[in-house]
């Protein structure tokens, strides 16, 4: 198996307290026992082991600084970390930061530009939508601060390389056209829309029943304005799904059937499962306490236990295997398939939503199109 993405948790805490956060507000309490920031000795081991993984794998992968809020480590530590990472992971390995945007400064951006690091900002849309969930630790709105961070990013001389795009969590009660218009106004290069986490036993916020289609309906609204836009940004989830319908390939986790290899390293150096599983199985960890302090990452990812975890992403439900949309939907994210009764052996809780969205996409694509890769 091959690693695509290493999620590096450089800070276990966050300066925001978003109501839907799978790290802090969906039952997993592991963050409380972790160092607030990755210590220098852990960081040194991580850098060396990622370099070793690259040499052994002989294939590039992405490193994403994640949290919590990764910019909480401060400019000085960030500079040291990025310099170390880039020294062992030259292009085409990508290094990026997923941030809430509040702590973006020109000093931070200069450091990122120097090391060829991309920045993705989490922002959900207009203030009234964003601030309904994305608040600080005193429940104060954060939209103005995030927009200020995005504007600082856009003004930077290296913005074209620095600014990757935004992640937006869907509020299915909002107006898709208004959200799309907001991101157009903000002039972001790309948007990825995420469904709120949940599963078949604990439904995502805004979803009334497993077979209801609030999220699918909302996404078809985005699809409508996206397809009609004469100068559209990139919308990753829609692009990936339509590429699959056209016979191409997608890259996004939880879409399509391409295996996704992810390793997560926490601030204490422990090697853990993909973090989104916190929303369905709080406390789910590898049986063996793998850590960069006691193990070699390149060996861990080749172990039978890691491979078992990796293979869990492949859909197992007979319903999925008889579904004509499986090659596009991919069964959704593993965490969204969970049910208290039988674990992950189910279609995604967003199955009906995805079917609706795929149907609308199919209608929108030219019916006569037959591309070479479609076989």
């Amino acid at each position: 198996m091959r690693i695509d993405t290493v999620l590096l948790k450089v800070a276990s805490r966050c300066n925001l307290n978003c109501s839907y956060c799978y790290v802090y507000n969906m039952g997993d309490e592991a963050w409380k026992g972790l160092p607030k920031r990755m210590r220098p000795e852990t960081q040194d081991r991580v850098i060396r082991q990622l370099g070793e993984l690259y040499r052994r794998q002989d294939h590039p992968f992405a490193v994403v600084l994640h949290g919590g809020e990764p910019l909480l480590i401060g400019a000085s530590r960030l500079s040291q970390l990025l310099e170390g990472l880039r020294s062992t992971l030259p292009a085409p390995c990508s290094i990026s930061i997923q941030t809430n945007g509040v702590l973006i400064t020109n000093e931070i951006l200069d450091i990122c530009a120097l090391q060829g690091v991309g920045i993705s900002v989490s922002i959900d849309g207009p203030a009234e939508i964003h601030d309904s969930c994305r608040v600080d630790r005193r429940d104060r709105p954060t939209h103005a601060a995030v927009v200020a961070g995005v504007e600082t990013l856009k003004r930077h001389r290296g913005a074209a390389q620095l600014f990757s795009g935004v992640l937006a969590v869907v509020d299915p009660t909002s107006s898709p056209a208004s959200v799309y218009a907001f991101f157009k106004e903000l002039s972001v290069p790309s948007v990825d829309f995420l469904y709120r986490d949940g599963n078949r036993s604990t439904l995502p916020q805004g979803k009334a029943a497993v077979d209801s289609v609030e999220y699918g309906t909302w996404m078809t609204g985005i699809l409508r304005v996206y397809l009609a836009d004469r100068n559209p940004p990139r919308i990753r989830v829609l692009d990936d799904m339509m590429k699959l319908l056209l016979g191409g390939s997608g890259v996004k986790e939880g879409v399509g059937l391409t295996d996704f290899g992810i390793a997560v390293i926490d601030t204490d150096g422990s090697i853990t499962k993909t973090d989104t599983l916190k929303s369905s199985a709080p406390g789910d960890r590898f049986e063996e306490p793998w850590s960069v302090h006691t193990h070699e990452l390149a060996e861990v990812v080749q172990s039978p236990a890691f491979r078992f975890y990796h293979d869990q992403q492949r859909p197992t439900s007979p319903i999925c295997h008889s579904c004509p949309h499986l090659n596009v939907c991919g069964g959704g994210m593993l965490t969204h398939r969970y049910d208290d009764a039988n674990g992950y052996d189910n279609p995604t809780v967003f199955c009906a939503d995805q079917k609706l969205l795929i149907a609308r996409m199919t209608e929108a694509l030219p019916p006569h199109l037959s591309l070479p890769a479609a076989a």
Partner: protein
Amino acid sequence: MDVRSTLPPTAQSGDCLDAKLESVAIARLIEEVRSTAFEVTRAYNRTYNRHNR
């Protein structure tokens, strides 16, 4: 700027089918799929990792 004001009437009326032949987004995707049809399917663009959060 309100993007809705820049959309053609078909989009404002909510009909994807009418928009498909002139959709920039679809044309872009078709070209990308065509150009990568015989290449390794996994892409590592600088924009995104594959993680979904």
